[in-house]
């Protein structure tokens, strides 16, 4: 799993202009599972379709 993620980081980081050392790639790979777990919660939220994202948020 970790090796897969490090491979993902190694492959994708240069595409957004990030040249990372192997140590940095490993650090990002270690940070990704928690972030992606949170992203999973967000993407599976049942938000009604009429709710739009707003460019400026007003409480």
């Amino acid at each position: 799993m970790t090796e897969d993620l490090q491979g993902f980081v190694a492959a994708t980081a240069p595409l957004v202009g990030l040249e990372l050392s192997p140590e940095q790639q490993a650090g990002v790979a270690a940070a990704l599972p928690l972030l992606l777990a949170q992203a999973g919660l967000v993407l599976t939220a049942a938000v009604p379709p009429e709710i739009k994202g707003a460019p400026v948020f007003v409480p």
Partner: protein
Amino acid sequence: MIDPISASAAAIAAAVRSGATSAVAVTRAHLDHIEAREPALNCFTTVLAERALAVARTVDAVVAAGRDPGPLAGVPFAVKDLFDIAGVTTLAGSRIRRDAPPAAQDATIVARLSAAGAVLLGAQVMDEFAYGFTTENAHYGATRNPRDPAHVAGGSSGGSAASVAAGMVPLALGTDTNGSIRVPAAFCGVFGLKPTYGRLSRSGVFPFVDSLDHAGAFARSVPDLALAYDVMQGPDPSDPVQVARPVEPASEALASGIDGLHIATLGGWFREGAEAATLEAVDRVAAALGARDSVELPEAARARAAAFCITAAEGAALHLPTLRSRPDEYDPATRDRLLAGALLPGSVVVQAQRLRRWFREQAARLFAQYDVLLAPATPGTAPLVGQATMMLGDREVPVRPNLGLYTQPLSFIGLPIVCVPVARPGALPLGVQIVAAPWAEATALRVAAWLERRGVVAAPVAG
């Protein structure tokens, strides 16, 4: 004669305005106290002794001339090191910004406090770029908790909260993106105010997550917090997020009591995993307020997750140029999370913003019934410096990402919150969030003041 170190900001200002003491004497006393306590606590990145004494002399000259220096006459204060101070480089807790040029002018709310007669003493230690909850900074060291220096102060505004608890200053400014005022306020046992998103200007404040950043304050009493808040309010077109509302003073409402207020405790997510002592603290505050109802804010876990993702993605966007050019100058713990955020799909951020609007509606339904909601600030008391994991219920989890579990869902929708320190003699402090509807800071402060008058919450000088 007042003791300047334990005196409230209001008492200091009254004494300076009446001539009972001088701003210079108050400033010198605090500078001496900082010098004595700083080696053990590490709250400051910069102490501005000469500037402070010069300002204090000006305040005294105004008094001597028979004029009024303002409601904060001679009151020392300090700011998290992401507020601009004219002539000083804003470090934002980083090594990267050491070679940035000095700020040309004070941040708007720093200038407003100064215009009210307050005396700025310095800039304070924080988590690197505000991305943390412990103020264990790889470049500037850990800020220690004045209630027990073996423990963290909390973060990211740790130096600010700790300095107020230690009596170094009676007032300090911090910022709160996901809990960075409320977590250190709870751990250090002081009062913290995170106003409504858009209430106070962030102009001249180094950003972290523009769509979540709030500026706020710490104090050892609710009247001091309200006094500072009132002075800092008002439109500022230079912050596009700041809402041009008129000043809505909170100080005058503090004595109103709680009659007529409907108060409930947040259940569900806001009680899961908390230590027994934390829940006892919330329940003690609820009992004192006569709050018997428990209500749920649905999908708080997903709201917290959305705040987590927006933070990573926006933080990454802000730092992408320096992540590309100077990655080795970041604390690896900061850099790796920002880099991970740079790889997050955009669909997550869009969905997180949609969830934010939906979640705001759920909170609005509760505020149609209740004026104030209560929640713990943190799962437990301050962890030890260097502590990597903690227990969340029966699960062992990493400390750093989990201290904001109960703060993140609420700042996500910009609600105004006062974090109050529950009096626990002989034990580390615990904080309770007094949560109000948008723009109802005065209500949250009014409840906090009522609790303070009855001794349910208190913030004495530590040590």
